[in-house]
């Protein structure tokens, strides 16, 4: 089944076996239902079908609303459309260059053309504005692909009357808007069409016959791209790339060929290809993807590879390093454990088809792309299916590897202290715990949507929903940021509760696993209790909703002094803490500000 979804996409198979694939994928359990509206400027039927497959593959079961043909504008602007009743959670606006109302005429002045550009821009800005007001949900918007023909030839790219230039400027404006608007996500069909090949993309027969704005075979590619954005919005993107070494990160077998024998550097085309692949991997790390090594090798040999004068990657780049002769699926489970991340957030890259197959069958949660054995294709295979798609680059993403490096340093320190509390105090931890504030909402939402283990309810929120509860007086919200003498861990914990009567009901309590066992959960609860008391509340009700991944917090409420309530939610447990009398502060190791 997964073979349909790895690069290069089997478009023929996806189109032909669509119904059978959908049947198989729909039968799985634990799918999140999401209401997705597709508003099209051209026919969208096949786009809807393909998007359904890619979302099901990402464990999302979409329910669709589809606008009538080319009614994307009217459906948003006129409330009598069915869109309101549908209550979309995601809106995808599928417009293309064919929906640009008018391109510059050859006799028009530069002022008139500027006006045309502004008019086109404003029409879309009005749409996004209206969606923000009426729905507050994320909008995925196509930009524009280059045109089918160029009446001015090469001049089309730079004369003010050129369509290629007009589209370029419009795309630039869309990018600026997407940076400004929190809920607007661009689907870059300009890149997709170029990658697919413009000549094939512009399939005129399909436009004339069925009003599809693109080649039928490009639709799986488009659907994959939209699904990647949706995965990223809901925190389902991958976090860690686990790499084999021999013939994956360098040519040759270091145990046999020795340091001088492995191929990396500039000497041969093969060595150049491995160098470029290492650079790609290093760039992934720099944008926040964790790297790990899983190699069948003697550890000494494996490490020696990174002392090669031409190596781009160094040992410091890896958050985990496993080189031994144990089965790889076992090692990879160990890596997920040591990094405290879910096993389904790992991607495994290995040139050896046997290793890939073993990992695929023995640990099916791990994504294993069909890497092949041709190093020249490795980058495309990892890059082109949006595995590590991200919707924003937070400061935390750029620093993540530092946190893990800091963790390794803290682990070393731990050994030198008599008691664990003494060690914790030596870390000189300072926490900032305060209600949600606008500048942190991106990070709060991101953390909420990707945290699986220390997460009592695993509820997911869009940015708009977070904004709403932050502003709502019947909610108490808290974020926690933790610094210590090794560095700033950034925002690591989120809590939110709703006041009902004299009690606060905790809807959300989660924490990043990179600060496990640091007492941060105690500091968060102390702050929540303090704020609940200030609001005159007498009790706190907490819920634990079990998932496959949050077993570690099953007894958290009990450990924190809550008593189990007899009446329980459908699945899970409910707990109560009386705060009308005295409450014993639980945090002893962290200084809390403000």
């Amino acid at each position, binding site marked *: 089944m997964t073979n349909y979804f790895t690069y290069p996409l089997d478009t*023929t198979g996806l*189109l*032909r*076996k*669509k*119904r*059978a694939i959908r*049947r198989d994928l729909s039968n799985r359990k634990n799918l999140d239902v999401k209401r997705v509206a597709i508003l099209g400027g051209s026919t969208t*039927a*096949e786009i809807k079908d393909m998007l359904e497959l890619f979302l099901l593959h990402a464990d999302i079961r979409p329910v669709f609303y589809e606008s009538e043909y080319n009614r994307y504008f009217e459906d948003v602007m006129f409330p009598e459309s069915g869109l309101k009743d549908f209550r979309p959670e995601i809106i995808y606006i599928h417009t293309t260059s064919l929906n640009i109302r008018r391109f510059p005429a050859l006799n028009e002045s530069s002022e008139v053309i500027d006006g045309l550009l502004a008019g086109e821009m404003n029409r879309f800005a009005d749409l996004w504005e209206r969606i923000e007001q009426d729905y507050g949900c994320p909008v995925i918007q196509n930009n524009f692909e280059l045109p089918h023909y160029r009446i001015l030839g090469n001049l089309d790219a730079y004369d003010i009357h050129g369509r290629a230039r007009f589209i370029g400027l419009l795309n630039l404006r869309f990018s600026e808007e997407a940076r400004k608007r929190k809920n607007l996500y661009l689907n870059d069909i300009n890149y997709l069409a170029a990658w697919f090949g413009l000549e094939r993309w512009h399939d005129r*027969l399909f436009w*004339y*016959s*069925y009003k599809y704005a693109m080649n*039928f*075979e490009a639709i799986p590619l488009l659907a994959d791209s939209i699904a990647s954005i949706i995965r990223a919005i809901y925190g389902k993107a991958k976090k860690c790339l686990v790499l084999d070494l021999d013939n994956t990160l360098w040519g040759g077998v270091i145990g046999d060929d020795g340091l001088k024998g492995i191929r990396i550097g500039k000497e041969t085309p093969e060595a150049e290809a491995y160098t470029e692949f290492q650079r790609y991997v290093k760039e992934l790390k720099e944008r926040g993807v964790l790297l790990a090594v899983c190699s069948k090798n003697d550890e000494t040999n494996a490490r020696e590879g990174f002392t090669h004068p031409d190596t781009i990657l160094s040992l410091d780049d890896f958050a985990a390093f496993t080189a031994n002769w144990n089965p790889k699926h076992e090692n990879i489970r160990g890596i997920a454990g040591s990094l405290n991340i879910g096993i389904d957030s790992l991607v495994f890259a290995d040139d050896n088809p046997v290793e890939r197959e073993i990992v695929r069958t023995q640990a099916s949660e791990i994504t294993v792309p069909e890497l092949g054995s041709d190093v020249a294709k490795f980058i495309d295979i990892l890059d082109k299916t949006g595995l590590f798609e991200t919707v924003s680059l937070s400061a935390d993403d750029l620093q993540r590897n530092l946190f893990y490096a800091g963790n390794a340093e803290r682990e070393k320190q731990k050994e030198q202290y008599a008691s664990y509390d003494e060690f914790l105090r030596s870390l000189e931890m300072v926490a900032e715990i305060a209600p949600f504030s606008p500048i942190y909402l991106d990070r709060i939402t991101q953390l909420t949507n990707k945290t699986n283990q220390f997460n009592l309810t695993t509820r997911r929120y869009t940015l708009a929903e977070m904004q709403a509860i932050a502003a709502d007086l019947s909610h108490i919200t808290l974020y926690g940021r933790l610094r210590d003498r090794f560095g700033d861990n950034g925002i690591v914990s989120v809590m939110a509760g709703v006041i009902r009567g004299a009690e606060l009901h905790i809807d959300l309590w989660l924490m990043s696993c990179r600060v496990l066992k640091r007492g941060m959960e105690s500091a968060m609860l102390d702050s929540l209790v303090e704020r609940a008391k200030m609001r005159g509340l007498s009790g706190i009700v907490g819920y634990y909703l079990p998932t496959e991944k949050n077993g570690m917090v099953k007894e958290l409420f009990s450990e924190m002094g809550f008593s189990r309530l007899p009446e329980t939610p459908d699945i899970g447990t409910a707990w109560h803490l009386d705060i009308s009398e005295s409450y014993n502060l639980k945090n002893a190791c962290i200084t809390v500000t403000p």
Partner: protein
Amino acid sequence: MHHGNTMKKDTILERMSEVIRDVLDNDAITLTRQTTADDIEEWDSLAHITIIVAIEKEFNVKFNLSDIKPLRNIGEFEDLIVLKTGIKG
């Protein structure tokens, strides 16, 4: 000689049937040269487009506007494939 030709025709028809069974996800479908889209419940206008594309891929051909329009039944579709692919009918 005649026998050989019939074999070829059956093969094309069988390959078309396989494509259509896949697209419509119904193993019970059997096609004859007289079958039309109206005879098969799942064969609606959306499925029709997918069938055309899947047949193009199966036989590695590309149909143009004037090819598809006049087709009245599977037999004519089969003849079109024979004409386009050069597989002798």
